[in-house]
């Protein structure tokens, strides 16, 4: 990492407004020493991909609570690849049922942290997986 702080985008995809979890994770990541950008609500896949590119982040993290994550991630995957961001770490957290994990991993969202995950596990995963 050449000593540069790891930079993370936390985004709230789609129309759902339950952002308590996303904001809590933003604080935990900032406290752990990462540089964190929070997108705010109602992000489209285009908005997430643009922010990731413009901010030159190392990690793209989504917080999904209302079940629309798979169609969103499918679109986002194409855009991130198009923008040359396939080598970044893609993560997702929130209300993510176990039955969706395999599909999400297949789409490239390797770090999956369902509700009730611990801050330390998220932090350690990022440290271990950002090249």
């Amino acid at each position: 990492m050449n000593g540069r702080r790891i930079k993370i985008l936390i985004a709230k995809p789609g129309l759902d407004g339950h952002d308590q979890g996303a904001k809590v994770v933003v604080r935990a990541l900032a406290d752990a020493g990462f540089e964190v950008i929070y997108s705010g609500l109602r992000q489209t896949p285009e908005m997430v991909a643009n922010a990731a590119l413009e901010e030159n982040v190392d990690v793209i993290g989504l917080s999904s609570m209302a079940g629309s994550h798979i169609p969103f991630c499918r679109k986002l995957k194409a855009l991130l690849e198009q923008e040359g961001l396939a080598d970044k770490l893609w993560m997702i957290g929130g209300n993510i049922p176990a039955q969706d994990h395999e599909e999400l991993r297949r789409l490239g969202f390797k770090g999956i942290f369902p509700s009730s995950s611990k801050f330390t596990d998220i932090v350690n995963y990022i440290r271990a997986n950002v090249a």
Partner: protein
Amino acid sequence: MSETKKIRSVVNESGIEIKPLYTADDVKSLQAEEMIGLPGGYPYTRGIHPLMYRKQPWTMRQYAGFGNPADTNKRFKYLIENGQTGLNVAFDLPTQIGFDSDDPMAEGEVGRVGMAVDSLKDFEIAFGGIDLDKITVSLTINGSAAILIAMYLAMAEKRGYDIAKLRGTAQNDILKEFIGRGTWIFPVQPSIKLVGDTIEYCAKHAPKYSPVSICGYHIRESGANPAQEMAYAFAIGKAYIEEVTKRGLPVDAFANRLSFNFNIFGNIFEQVAKFRAGRSLWAKVVKEQCGAKDPDSMVLRMIAGGGGGGLTFEQPELNIVRGAYYALISALSGTQTMALCSYDEAYTIPTEYSARISLRTMQILIEEMGLCDTVDPLGGSYYVESLTAQMRELMEKHMQDVEAEGGMVRMVAEGAVQAKVSRQAYEMQKNVENGSFRKVGVNCHRVEEEQKSVEFHPYDEANAAAQIGATNEVRKSRDNAKVAAALSRIEADAKADVNVMPALMEAVKAYATVGEMTRALVAVYGRYQEPIRF
């Protein structure tokens, strides 16, 4: 040294230190007459009716709605057949945020977390065959509430009900949407203006309808403690009252139709004291700060029972037990209406089976457990009375703090409340992770398990497509010149800063869609820009 030196200290979530024993000395200073009084009279600490559940049990109103209006109508009828006495309607996110089902922003969201509604036609289907005099309907709608209230009134009118006598509730508390839940559309000021429009319109034309249910609930879910939950909700209530009284309507013309929605998870006694204290504080605020003379204006009516933040992903069956305690707390607190979170709600939309368990939980309290026998059964307890007085003092202090920071509207617009409660949510989560705040199944008494005991509610693509098809049919069959005229009137009235409800009534009756009406308002008001502040 005395025994008490050795025991651990206990502080409740609101920050009050709890003693190991309360005695008559703790309540000596409370002037029973003034602070506690009798149920049905000022300051309503013990309840808002003299006989409470002895006369009539609480209304049972489980939150329900998914897919298209026909699916939802079926679930409504199932719940009514099983003894539910009110409806609590869940809308999908596009409806809540003012997008039609065929809007690109709605893709993948149609009917997902609630019922999809585009036009009056959908309400006609959703409430078909349900007697709106017997079953009161609560609409969980906020950003697009003015439109959906107009739609509900128009639907009832069309079916021959006199809206002057129609009962029902809309959530319509936009200030809390900016703090948590997030289904805002317009900027803060026009959003409050729209809430004022609905209150004013209902006071004049549908005086039995409750146009607003002020929600401490979601502020608590976002990280507020129980005392702040009440104080912030009251500060929001005051903001709506001020919005309407500045138009020249006296507070006594509408305050009796304001209702509240509160959270219930946490320490049993803290919650009971919170509600008893809250009733007396709201009565005092409306009387002394808002100038109400009519005792009916001072009464705090509420729905309670939900406590999503208390439920866990781990060992979800334990949520059935938690739900039963939440119902007990609500009953001991003198709620008017109860809506329990179902045990699978931390994962998905409740199944018929889990919704029925919640309904039966409340029915067990009514039928078997004696919760309706006597009013305010914990009244007079040294502990509960003492805690009630302390909670009230604390809530008042939180309300003063809000005033000192420029008032609730300003704090919301600047993102100050959002930042404050989110900071507290983070602290709480750290306490859960380090085990100092105990959650069974989460940080103690864990078992290794797989997610297996919950049935997921599937997303139905075909259903979404059918909804879009039905709405396109409505657009073809309606009088489009009439729709265009009605939409222009909405825009003109919004621009002229007059009450937009008559124009919305005209538009919904012409089968204008939620998206079309929202766009007419956005053309004048613009869209909210979320302040990102930590």
